[in-house]
């Protein structure tokens, strides 16, 4: 909604670029005018007298996001990626039903005719050929796309949730809490995570998922109690020792002892909570209900979501914490505080939007890495199980027959590569768009 107005000083035409623009500088005479949106349909311009204006807001008048979006669109590769992704998303959502409607084939349809139980090369009837059980590959690719993309997105969301919360808390609390939290991240970071995931999945995959579900309530309870207890312990510790900075030995011993006592207390509380919940059999009943409703293959997929999400939250936490830390000390926060803005408002209205930038970029780049990990796990047999398919598992299966039936590998492989490609380009484009300094001329 760009309104055409006239500069009050020289009469030249002036365009407003957004409804929130407050100041406009005439491109002809460079006279600054204040925009009055009293009447929404007919904003007025009045000459700015005092001469003290914020140049940046005046000249462009667009918000940070609008600006970034424009820059993103200029980046051809990113746009290409975006388009491909949009097409891919469309295909996998509405593709399968349409395909089934047209050809009557589904992803797991196995023909009755024994003669058709072979892998056929691409033909009119089967655009991408069939796999060894006679299933149409095109349908499988579409179906697999749903699952691959779902895994990618949901795992990223999981890692976002965990990572952002953890990072935001660490960043905002600052001080020793932040220190400890980041040390933990560092330690966990050093572990070859994939190994743990492999163990996790192989141990809990398939029929064993129930066991995990049974444990879940206890784990959740334990975590909540643990965090609460830790915070309480910290608070107590600070209250008791906050003011006393004397360095006598007696003091140190008392500190140490109380520190240990508090830590032990925390552990005991966690243990108590966990076993109490366990006793109630809440977990077991949940597990039973779960296994009634959800079938095996699907539960494996859910497990994948979480497992993969857990692999990438670490860096996300670091990114978020870094952002929050740097923003916390910036002047606009102090300014907001000085004008009496309340703390939650500060966090949500000021800190979060500014912190979002790198988070979004990193999230866009996490999706492809998660999808690759999923493919890797499928290759090892730990990923998505039949009858469900994902691009990774399709490719993994196809690899076996590459010399004889190359189409089994090529189609899913190319599709996946294309999607990952686009995601990476998009992520790069986002990074360039949101961080003005990396702009090329």
């Amino acid at each position: 909604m760009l309104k055409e107005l006239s500069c009050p000083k020289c009469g030249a035409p002036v365009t407003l670029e957004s409804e929130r623009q407050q100041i406009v500088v005439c491109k002809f005479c460079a006279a600054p005018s204040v925009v009055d949106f009293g009447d929404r349909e007919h904003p007025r311009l009045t000459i700015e007298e005092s001469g003290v204006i914020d140049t940046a807001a005046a000249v462009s008048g667009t918000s940070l996001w609008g600006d970034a979006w424009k820059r993103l669109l200029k980046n051809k590769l990113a746009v290409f990626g975006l388009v491909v992704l949009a097409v891919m998303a469309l295909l996998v959502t509405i593709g399968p039903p349409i395909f089934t409607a047209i050809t009557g084939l589904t992803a797991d349809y196995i023909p009755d005719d024994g003669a058709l139980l072979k892998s056929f090369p691409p033909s009119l009837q089967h655009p991408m050929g069939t796999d060894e059980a006679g299933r149409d590959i095109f349908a499988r690719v579409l179906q697999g796309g749903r699952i691959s993309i779902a895994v990618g997105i949901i795992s990223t969301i999981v890692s976002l949730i965990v990572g952002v919360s953890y990072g935001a808390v660490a960043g905002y609390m600052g001080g020793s809490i932040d220190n400890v939290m980041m040390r933990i991240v560092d330690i966990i970071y050093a572990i070859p995570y994939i190994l743990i995931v492999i163990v996790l999945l192989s141990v809990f995959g398939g029929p064993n998922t129930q066991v995990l579900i049974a444990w879940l309530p206890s784990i959740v309870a334990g975590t909540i109690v643990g965090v609460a207890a830790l915070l309480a312990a910290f608070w107590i510790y600070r209250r008791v020792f906050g003011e006393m900075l004397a360095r006598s030995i007696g003091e140190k011993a008392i500190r140490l002892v109380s520190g240990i006592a508090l830590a032990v207390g925390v552990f005991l509380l966690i243990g108590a909570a966990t076993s109490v919940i366990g006793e109630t059999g809440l977990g077991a009943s949940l597990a039973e209900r779960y296994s009634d409703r959800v079938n095996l293959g699907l539960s494996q997929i859910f497990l994948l979501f979480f497992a993969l999400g857990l692999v990438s939250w670490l860096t996300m936490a670091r990114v978020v914490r870094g952002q929050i830390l740097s923003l916390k000390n910036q002047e606009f926060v102090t300014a907001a505080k000085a004008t009496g803005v309340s703390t939650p408002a500060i966090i949500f209205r000021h800190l979060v939007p500014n912190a979002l930038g790198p988070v979004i970029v990193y999230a866009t780049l996490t999706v492809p890495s998660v999808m690759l990990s999923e493919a890797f796990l499928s290759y090892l047999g730990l990923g998505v199980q039949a009858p469900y398919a994902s691009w990774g598992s399709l490719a993994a299966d196809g690899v076996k027959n590459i010399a004889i039936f190359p189409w089994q590998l090529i189609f899913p492989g190319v599709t996946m590569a294309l999607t990952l490609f686009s995601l990476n380009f998009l992520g790069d484009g986002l990074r360039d768009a949101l961080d003005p300094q990396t702009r090329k001329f």
Partner: protein
Amino acid sequence: MTNNGTILSVNDLKTYFQTEDGVVKAVDGISFELKKGETLGIVGESGSGKSVTNLSVMRLIPEPPGKIVGGDVVFDGIDVRSLPIDEVRKIRGKRIAMIFQDPMTSLNPFLKISTQLMEVTRLHLGHTKQQAYEHAIKMLKTVGIPDAESRVDNYPHEFSGGMRQRVMIAMALSCDPELLIADEPTTALDVTIQAQILELIKDLKARMGTSVILITHDLGVVAGMTDKIIVMYAGKVFEQAPTKELFSTPANPYTRGLLRSVPDPAHEQGKELYQIPGLPPDVAHLPPGCPFAERCDRAEDICRKEFPPFVEINPDHHSLCHFAKEVYEESKVHPPTAAARANK
């Protein structure tokens, strides 16, 4: 090969940049001359093109997006623009040296000071490592770094801001250049340090006979240091005059405005501070006519329509204004600075 003692002659220099917003004419037809041993001050607001001018002299403009599109730069009789780049490199650091605004980022944080100092003399003067090392220590002493022998092996982050700038000066003067270009050397420093650095430059200049170009936006800095001054605005020279004359009888409304903006507590207590109204123009989209017109308090129609002429007040004093002579006369009667007023 000097001709009448002119060491640098810049003639109608034009440097343009290709940006997303269009072509930015950062420097649009600048001309000035510098004689041997002189100190020239280039004054202007941010974006006036002063830094670009100096980078152009040494051909340090990054080629995409920038380009020197016109004019001449003649250093000691040599046409710098037409030299092959490796010849230019022989001049850089040896005959023309440059120091930059922010000593914190202008020194390589990963290398020792000694390495960075030795580089210059080993490259241009052919010193051996030992010679270069000793010379480095000598230079550090010259610029007043205490305990030079042990500090020479330190890293940049081990020095304070003022010291770092001294190190940069030492580096620049290592080969005893004929011309020193100082691009806002004191802007990033505390006021007390500023004075020290300026004194240092003055002192070294006297001792080594270097010609100096001093770039700044701070009139106070040039007042005590320069022989003559150029005032730049929107990529053009707005006024050019010997220092004393510029301060006492400026012939350009912009210069007058600048001078009036310098607060003078001794003479102006209780009065409102003067500011030139408005903002510096967007150099990518300059209006026709005088770029200063919309901020000028004596602008008239002709100013907005026609580009002003370069008027000669006297052989050393030029001003870009339709009303240069009038402003000059007015300055004689009403000097722009209170101090000058008091001295009348």
